[in-house]
């Protein structure tokens, strides 16, 4: 019996093995097996077998059906002018009757297209949990450390616990409502809902334009407040484009320097900063990217990317 190589990925050998052991003689089924083995590329370009070539020659596929004749609606079709009709025999091709364009669409009455979130739906919860969690000694008792201490004859003054990522510290959420984020309004609203589901209903959601330090709005209480940094250790999550999408001629557009000053003021209190940005990380100013963990708010964002982003964020601290 064959023993698979632990280092070998599935490849042509597996396909041949499956085809042989299952006694497959049908090319379509070989393709299906290749699909299940995720090696479709190996058979996609393969030439058809001799039998299949003969079969194709004997039973050629039927010719495509002729295109349907153009349908003209008598009430709406173009009528040539009197002069054209008089010169009917010599009328040029462009004067032939043509169907009228459909009536204009009333865009206001059109339903919105179905909403598709920027993160892949099935991954959103895991992405947010990993992004917003902070490590802490909140896991189960760390048995190895306990045994080690006792075996050394040391008294246990407290139970050491395993370090696990936790959301128990909550999160402060800052949502950018500036002109650059207008195209992402629905996405931001949906992301806020998801973050509240993950971090808890008590999550403070504060909206701002420009910079949070200019003042934040608590929409639930309908008040504008001066910005206050959360207690030490509570992460701050920003939903923002850091001004990337704002018209560069806009006079009150905050620049990278102002953002850096704000981010530094938050970091002084030992709060971790995470930003969900609807643009590639490379488009953010380097001075900003060095101060905040940037999570690209995109379909391709996966946990692997989040881990890499978090590592970058930690090493930048």
């Amino acid at each position, binding site marked *: *019996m*064959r*023993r*698979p*190589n*632990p*280092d*070998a*990925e*599935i490849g042509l050998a*597996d396909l041949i*093995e*499956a085809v*042989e*052991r*299952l*006694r*497959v*003689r*049908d090319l379509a*089924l070989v393709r*299906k*097996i290749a699909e*299940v*083995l*995720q090696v479709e590329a190996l058979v996609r370009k393969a030439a058809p077998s001799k039998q299949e070539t003969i079969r194709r020659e004997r039973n050629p596929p039927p010719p495509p059906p002729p295109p349907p004749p153009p349908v003209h609606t008598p009430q709406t079709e173009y009528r040539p002018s009197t002069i054209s009709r008089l010169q009917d025999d010599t009328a040029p091709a462009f004067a032939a009757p043509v169907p009228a364009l459909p009536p204009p669409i009333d865009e206001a009455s059109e339903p919105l297209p*179905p*909403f*598709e*979130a920027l993160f892949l*739906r*099935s*991954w959103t*919860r*895991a*992405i947010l949990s990993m992004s917003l969690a902070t490590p802490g000694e909140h*896991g*189960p008792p760390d*048995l*190895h450390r*306990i*045994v080690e201490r*006792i075996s050394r004859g040391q008294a246990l003054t407290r139970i050491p616990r395993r370090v*696990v990522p936790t959301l128990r510290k909550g999160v402060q959420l800052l949502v950018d409502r500036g002109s650059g984020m207008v195209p992402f309004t629905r996405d931001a609203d949906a992301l806020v*809902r998801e973050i*509240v*589901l993950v971090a808890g*209903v008590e999550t403070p959601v504060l909206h701002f334009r420009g910079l949070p330090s200019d003042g934040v709005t608590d929409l639930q209480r309908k008040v504008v407040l001066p910005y206050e940094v959360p207690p030490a250790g509570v992460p701050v999550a920003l939903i923002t484009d850091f001004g990337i999408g704002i018209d560069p001629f806009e006079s009150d557009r905050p620049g990278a320097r102002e953002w850096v000053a704000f981010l530094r003021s938050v970091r002084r209190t030992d709060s971790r900063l995470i930003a969900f940005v609807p643009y590639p990380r490379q488009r953010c100013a380097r001075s900003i990217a060095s101060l905040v963990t940037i999570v690209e708010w995109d379909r391709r964002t*996966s*946990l*692997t990317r989040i*881990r890499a982003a978090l590592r970058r964020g930690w090493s930048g601290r």
Partner: protein
Amino acid sequence: MTYNYDRSMFEAPPPPTTLVERSRRDRRDGAVYVWNPDLELAVNIALATERPLLVRGPSGTGKSSLAASLARAKRWRYYEEVVSSTTEARHFLWKFETLKRLSDSQAGGAKTPVHYVEPGVLWWAFDPDSARRRGMDAGALPTLDDPNRFPAGPDARAVVLIDEIDKADPDVPNNLLVPLGSLEFKVTDADDAVVKSSMPPVVVITTNDERELPGAFLRRCVVIKLDPPGREALLGIAAAHFGADADGLYGKVADAMDAVAAAKKARALPPPSTAEFLDAIGTCRDLNVTPGDHPTWTAIERAVFSKPSMQDETTKS
């Protein structure tokens, strides 16, 4: 769609002709399972190539019960491990009862470390004799009971279910590659006892796709995605579980489920699953209720299909 190949390794059993008792309708016992040709083919490919079978798909589509059904049909041994966020790759091989050892040492009855080794599912699958003896020589230790619940011959192969691997730390799948590929591992807590498998087990791994799995792991698995069944298949599944539909109940419940699915889709929520469909039918039969415009059905529909959640509340607000 049927496929033409040699099914001598595995032929999907037909649904049971006699009704399985309600108490035995446990999704882990594999007593009732409706196979389809794609699924049967994927299992055969996994058997032919001796690769793990990764089953993807939303909750309630029958991913977990597939493994038990396969073991029952082939009269093979069956072991399962449900993954959690704290599961480590080593847990599938063995666990070490640190706390028990500490307790024994405090009571003055400490034994050799091997007494505290608990074999994991892969150890049982690879070599049940060695697992019973914790890797030691016969007679050295009291033997353990084999956790296999299914009737199987002494030389029967094993089916191992690793359920919901996407719940584990992202490193866990990659850490499983070597023992799964080489069919061998060393128990460092049991005097480096070597566990080897003479007959490769069939490893069925499920994922709800809540987070992506490492590429290296995916490239070593035979992958099948279970989609929610269509209406006809759904009615067939209900008939396999509850017997023939004498009073048209299954169709009415399916209609009600379709309506809820459409409403949920409009709000970008996942539709009710096959498991919930079966729950609704079971409830209707037990309470003698038919879907319709009356409070009992409304309550069933709300509890089984709609399941108002915190997400609904945040969406409304």
